[in-house]
């Protein structure tokens, strides 16, 4: 079939010399590499229409059906960052954005397990750039896709009337309620401390929430992405999405503040309350929630940043050629 004449034209001499006098991996090289990796993730996403649609439909089902049904069942009291009573739809919107991040991270983790077998991951890892840089770029590529998905969701939700209120100023919000098992080792704050940071020009106030949420989404996406990246190196055979759904996504999503405020859970079960507070996903949700209201929840910020560092270090370690798990296990796609 492909027996056509091959034009083995040879590489022009000038170019060959340029190749021999090696390209320096300078700052421009790093930037080109980063851009290439992120752009590939976005391109791939835009070419997979089903993935785009399912990523959008999933949170919308929760918003339009689940939330509508639960609105009357579950009263949400005024808790920060809310200053008035809010509809249940408005309460779960940040949780659903975090759910988008969670699904996206787990999906990209699965695709990395799959990639390991198809060789896409191998070609990434033979790049001459440092491996930690390559993995971080890949993560940020995934986060860019998640950001697109989150905006598509917020866009539809806007028409449904789920909009963050106008924001007059950016505030730091600090309230710390240490877990009971710490036994008072840390002092509890009884009243939240709110520190105004700066005022937002009145023209921008109605849309400010859509901007202030961006850093929260990026950070939360990085945290979940690095957790997933670590999982992709540990999990060897992950045949389908069902396992990840049952053992990672559902427990993380339901044992968090995504669907119900934590004080409600505390009333139901103190143990479950403690579990929710140990779940990093809770802090991803809260960071997003406060972000939409132009506030930075310092406790959530600290937990998310801390977890990102730990998970990312674990993932980089797992992919480290001399120490990592891949070396011990015999590498992608089997041994020998």
């Amino acid at each position, binding site marked *: 079939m492909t027996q056509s004449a*091959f034009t*083995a*034209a040879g590489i022009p001499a000038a170019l060959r010399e340029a190749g021999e006098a090696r390209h320096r991996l300078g700052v421009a090289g790093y930037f080109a590499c980063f851009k290439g*990796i992120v752009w590939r993730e976005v391109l791939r996403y835009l070419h997979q229409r089903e993935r785009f649609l399912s990523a959008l439909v999933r949170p919308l089902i929760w918003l339009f059906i689940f939330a509508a049904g639960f609105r009357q069942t579950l009263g949400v009291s005024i808790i920060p960052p809310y200053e008035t009573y809010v509809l249940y739809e408005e309460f779960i919107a940040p949780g659903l954005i975090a759910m988008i991040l969670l699904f996206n991270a787990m999906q990209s983790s699965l695709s990395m397990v799959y990639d390991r077998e198809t060789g896409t991951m191998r070609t990434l890892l033979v790049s001459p750039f440092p491996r930690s840089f390559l993995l971080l770029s890949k993560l940020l590529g995934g986060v860019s896709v998640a950001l697109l998905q989150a905006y598509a969701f917020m866009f539809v939700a806007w028409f449904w009337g789920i909009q963050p209120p106008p924001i007059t100023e950016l505030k730091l919000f600090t309230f710390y309620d240490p877990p009971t098992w710490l036994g008072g080792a840390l002092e509890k704050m009884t009243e939240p401390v709110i520190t105004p940071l700066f005022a937002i020009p009145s023209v921008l106030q109605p849309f400010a929430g859509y901007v202030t949420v961006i850093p929260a989404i990026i950070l939360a996406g990085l945290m979940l992405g690095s957790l997933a990246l670590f999982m992709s190196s540990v999990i060897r055979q992950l045949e389908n999405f069902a396992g990840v759904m049952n053992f990672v996504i559902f427990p993380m999503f339901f044992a968090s503040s995504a669907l119900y405020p934590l004080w409600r859970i505390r009333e139901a079960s103190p143990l479950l309350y403690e579990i929710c507070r140990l779940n990093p996903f809770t802090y991803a949700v809260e960071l997003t929630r406060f972000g939409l209201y132009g506030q930075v929840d310092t406790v959530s910020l600290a937990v998310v940043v801390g977890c990102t560092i730990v998970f990312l270090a674990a993932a980089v370690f797992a992919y480290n050629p001399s120490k990592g798990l891949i070396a011990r296990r015999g590498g992608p796609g089997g041994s020998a």
Partner: protein
Amino acid sequence: MSTTSLTETDRTPALIVNNVSHSFGDKKVLDNVSLTVEQGAFVVLLGLNGAGKSTLFSLITRLYDNVSGEIFIRGFDVRRRPSQALQRLGVVFQSRTLDVDLSLMQNLKYHAALHGFSNREAANRASQALDLVGLLDRSNDKVRSLSGGQTRRVEIARSMMHHPGLLLLDEATVGLDLGSREGVVKIVRDLVAKERLGVLWATHLMDEVARTDQVVILHKGVVLFNGTVPVLLSQTGAANVREAFRSLTGTQAAIEEAA
């Protein structure tokens, strides 16, 4: 075991593997493997599935580090100077590495970016590499629309964009029909002749060995033979490479069927 410090000169071999052993747990997969690929040499690495070829490739591509012995790509130690070594390495993996939903050009630009080339230079290099494998006119088509042999040729173009000194191919012709196989082999042989490229071609298909090639026979992690085809035949007294392979390894199983 210490090798004198090698610098990149015209005569530096494309690849030196020196006394490399590797184990997974108690299982020794590579036992004191040494081989050299000179510039402009086409070296066939012959071995059955499980002979240790993939492990050797994982070590050369630095998926994980060699714990004993040394590996040099154009004089650069893969473990100590991975960045310089990997800049001089091109790999065609057995499994596919292209995104079928993206065009040839989009795929190649991504891989050029992995080597730090700016968008514009990436486009130039991608066009040149596609021209090299005779697929320049398809550059805006999706990879999905290509045949198996054409996809392999794009993989070769991908691995050549940064003009490596060493090209590794892992079972590059698996799953191709005879015509496409010959086409792929011809392209790589032409590259060896024209670019003074060193090629390490891993395969279990004996008929891909030409009479002038250097052959390395790897069996159960041990190099059983390392030399040219005429030497292989005279040493074993065999009529062809297949028979020589069988008499060296003692395997009766037909090699071709192992595919």
